[in-house]
């Protein structure tokens, strides 16, 4: 499998100035990962651990107060390499939507309220291709048909659509140009389970037909189980475990991941389950050593002093924990 994007040592901090002192929020701290062609990569982790920030960095959308402190993201698209974090806005425009697109968190407000859906699609197509208006229209309509979305939606305004429909329209908008990589930030959160199911099915369908790389962020492990081929688990701005989906669910190695998987209630099982003890750390003021050690039941001295690296402990299974896997 070809790697379509590689990220090395990403560090992205929010710098917040209040009064005379600046605090940095280390939302993404030393994260390295890569994506293969035609895979669904899921990023899991509890809220506020830096998932959205990571996605923004990967997409090249870095604006104050967020700053990329270290690392870079390289895309290999049609044989060309793009160093996305050192590209100008004009250069970025050329690859966006054609090659890389983005489904933002909270689809409710990303559609221009006073523009019909059709016009919004047209805006995107006109901007990135040289299609004529008629071509564009037929393209949009056939795409909607292909996705099983009602075509009449095109003539509605965003507010006339239900939440689930709006989310699906946003997904269609992000994929209408058949991009190579799609970043989706919590595309199903805040949706009803029934609606959520529709959205997940839509994403699956697109992935199957377009064979592109889908990077999906959510903290709902159920969604990951349905969609992802590989999963990366984040904690406090770091990637702490990465493996194929089956592996993560069957054999979670990091204590945090273990809590995450095991605390999920399941039908037919009312036995008592334990959640992760303690509460997540503040990214502005991380504990020393492994950031998870205050909540970790198996932590010892080294965990408090030194931070573990993410290393491959089994085939395609990486973990950042002193207590896990092969000797370090």
């Amino acid at each position, binding site marked *: 499998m070809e790697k379509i994007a590689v990220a090395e040592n990403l560090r992205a901090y929010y710098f917040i100035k209040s009064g005379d002192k600046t605090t940095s929020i280390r939302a993404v701290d030393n994260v390295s990962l890569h994506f293969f062609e035609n895979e669904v990569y899921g990023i899991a982790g509890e809220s506020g651990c830096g998932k959205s920030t990571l996605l923004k960095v990967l997409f090249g959308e870095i604006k104050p107060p967020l700053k990329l402190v270290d690392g870079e993201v390289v895309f290999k698209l049609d044989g060309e390499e793009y160093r996305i974090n050192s590209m100008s806005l004009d250069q970025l425009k050329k690859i966006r939507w054609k090659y890389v697109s983005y489904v933002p968190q909270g689809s409710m407000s990303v559609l*221009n*309220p006073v523009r019909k859906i059709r016009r919004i699609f047209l*805006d995107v197509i006109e901007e990135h291709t040289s299609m004529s208006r008629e071509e564009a229209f037929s393209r949009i309509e056939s795409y909607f048909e292909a996705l099983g979305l009602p075509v009449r939606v095109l003539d509605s305004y965003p507010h006339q659509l239900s939440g689930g429909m709006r989310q699906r329209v946003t997904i269609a908008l992000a994929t209408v140009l058949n991009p190579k990589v799609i970043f989706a930030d919590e595309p199903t959160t805040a949706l009803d389970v029934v609606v959520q199911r529709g959205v997940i099915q839509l994403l699956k369908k697109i992935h199957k037909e377009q064979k592109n790389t889908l990077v999906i962020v959510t903290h709902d492990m159920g969604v990951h189980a349905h969609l992802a081929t590989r999963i990366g688990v984040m904690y406090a701005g770091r990637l702490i475990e990465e493996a194929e989906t089956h592996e993560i669910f069957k054999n979670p190695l990091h204590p945090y991941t273990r809590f995450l998987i095991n605390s999920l209630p399941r039908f037919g099982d009312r036995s008592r389950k334990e959640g992760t003890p303690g509460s997540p750390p503040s990214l502005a003021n991380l504990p020393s050593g492994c950031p998870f050690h205050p909540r970790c039941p198996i932590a010892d001295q080294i965990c408090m002093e030194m931070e573990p690296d993410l290393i491959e402990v089994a085939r395609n299974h990486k973990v950042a924990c002193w207590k896990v896997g092969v000797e370090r």
Partner: protein
Amino acid sequence: MKFIKSYLIPRLIQYVYMVVIGITLVFLIPRLSPVDPIEQILNTRLRIQNTTPEAVIKMREVMEELYGLKGTLWEQYVNLWKRLLKGDFGPSMVYYPASVISLIRNSLPWTIGLLTLTTLISWVLGLVIGAILGYYKESFGSKILTGILMAINPIPYYIFALTLLLLFCYVFPIFPLGGGFSVGQKISLSWSFILDVIKHGTLPALSLIILGFAGWGLGTKILVQNLREEDYVVYARMMGLRNSKILFSYVLRNAMLPQVTGLGLSLGGIFGGAMMTEILFTYPGIGTLAYNAVRANDYNVMIAISFFSIIAVATALLILDLLYPLIDPRIRYR
């Protein structure tokens, strides 16, 4: 049907009570004060003529009769409505026996012509330029222009207009000193007449446009600055859309909505006239009529102007509310 019952009728009820309460206040304010409008007319006469004091008292009676100032407050109020509903605003006190309606009819076309045009121009200018200023708020040019607008905005209109007058009527005598058109011009639809009217209207219009533009521009700028951070604008930028497209189809289109209300109110407010402009440029219009009416305590004229202006603003708001769903698809007649 649903629209009529659930939206139009309640909205019309609101319209009616706004007008009724408004007129009532306008009726009450001068009447609850100790001012006697007739006294002023008598005073002027007394000063010039040798009218005997007895004659004055008799004249007063005649006048009270003529102006509907007889009877209790309530009777006067009922009478007022009787007259208003018939479209009769009574005679002017100063220009007796001319009817108030005829005075307003004389002034209104000028005011409407001047103010509709200038309001629209300054609104459009303010909207477009303000949007650009807000959208590129970091740019140097934007900061400079914003600064200029902020400095112009608070200059009292009178001073600003007088400066224009000195500049373009005296230092560079390009424009006439005032009036609606040249003396001796016959009102017609000929080119020369229209040109003449434009020439006379330019300076008053310019003064209104520049100051109006500064106001609208600053207002729009702030709106746009906030809109710039709306999710859909941020996302449009992420989608790689051109700035011009984002500015006009995403930002401006949305910035327009709140400003449309302002426009409606201003257009409705036209009935108040542009007092200062009219006084300074001796431009015919409702403003001087109102000004002189206030000074001469010409009740009927004041009530009529207030009446029209309340009706106009209320109507503008009503029309706006009815049109709003056309401009803003989010709003429906519920």
